[in-house]
């Protein structure tokens, strides 16, 4: 079958990339994926820089801040009602994403060996990981919204203790103290959480869709006929980028 001819053979006689060869020794598609990811990195940077600016405009001393403490908000774990478990659930989410990154990269490696069975198996694992992560995020959002967080409102503030400390260091009169031992903190806290994790979750969702498409193409033997599994690498680049963004979301929204 003529279709088995590698595209590499005919490359020699073609004015590839106008200059006669690939400038970076990568394919056109892969370079374009990199350029897209660069622009996407700028998108997420702008969101995270906005988060940083809002947060810095609510700092009173280096340690005390009117910004709510994530540990007192994201401290839930499914089926463990009433327990204070900060960081645990989001660590599980991080673990799921790292694991699905590994299965993705194993699919890429299997693609180098042109092993169709292994590629499709690892793609299935990756898709499962992505869906598991999205489910976790849905639960996280559900809990957060259930406790009163909205795009245009934030029921989370600092504790009475923190308020007293702020008062003792003199923070000005713009800060409203509500009844009870909680204040209503800065609105951007909830808004930025929804926007940034939502945007990231949307990327995970698109990644899952891309992975499903690529998986179907693998199973139907498209890459086998094409002679290379580079599409797996391109989908993999996107998937790892999603993991990369999560590293920073995890750091700035939960750890700090």
């Amino acid at each position, binding site marked *: 079958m*003529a*279709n088995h*001819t*590698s*595209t*590499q053979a*005919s*490359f020699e006689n*073609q*004015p*590839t*990339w106008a200059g006669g060869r690939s*400038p*970076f020794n*990568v*394919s*056109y*598609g892969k370079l374009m994926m*990199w350029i897209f990811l*660069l622009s996407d*990195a*700028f998108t997420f*940077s702008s969101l995270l*820089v*906005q988060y*940083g*600016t809002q947060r*810095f*405009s609510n*700092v009173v001393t*280096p*340690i005390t801040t009117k910004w709510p403490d994530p540990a007192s908000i994201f401290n839930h774990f499914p089926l463990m009602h009433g327990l204070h478990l*900060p*960081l645990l659930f989001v*660590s599980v989410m*991080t*673990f799921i994403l*790292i*694991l699905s*990154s*590994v299965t*993705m*990269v*194993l699919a890429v*490696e299997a693609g*180098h060996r042109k092993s169709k069975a292994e590629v499709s198996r690892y793609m299935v694992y990756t898709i499962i990981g992505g869906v598991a992560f999205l489910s976790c995020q849905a639960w996280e959002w559900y809990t957060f919204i259930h406790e009163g967080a909205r795009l245009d409102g934030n029921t989370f503030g600092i504790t009475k203790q923190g308020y007293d400390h702020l008062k003792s260091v003199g923070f*000005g009169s713009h800060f409203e103290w509500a009844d009870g031992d909680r204040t209503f903190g800065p609105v951007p806290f909830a808004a930025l959480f929804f926007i940034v994790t939502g945007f990231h979750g949307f990327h995970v969702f698109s990644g899952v869709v891309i992975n499903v498409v690529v998986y179907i*193409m693998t199973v*139907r033997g498209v890459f086998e006929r*094409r002679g290379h599994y*580079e599409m797996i690498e391109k989908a*993999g*680049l996107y998937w*790892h980028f999603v993991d*990369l963004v999560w*590293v920073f979301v*995890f*750091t700035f929204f939960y*750890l*700090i």
Partner: protein
Amino acid sequence: MEFYTKPGEYDAINYVPHTESHGTKELWKTFWLLLGITVLDFVIYFVMPASGFRNFIFIFFGLVKAYYIVGAFMHLKHEKINLALVILVPMIFVLGLISGLLYEGSALEVMKSM
């Protein structure tokens, strides 16, 4: 099923350099590293009281994780240096934006409490 790829046609677009498997050793090493750093994040979070230094550690660990994800998983370490620079150098502008806007954020705080 036919996609846009037909061997012999559009070769400028479809040229793909030959790639070989380098085994899974480096990949698993990277996985254990990422997992280890995340566990370390978790431990430090509970062991150390909140401070600027702790935040510095978390950001540093984040950058280390980013280095391994981009370098090993996204394979940028093994690409041509030109490609790596094309991707990484523009991010310098983000560093500028971060330092600028964090400073402005602090100034905003001072203005609000005046």
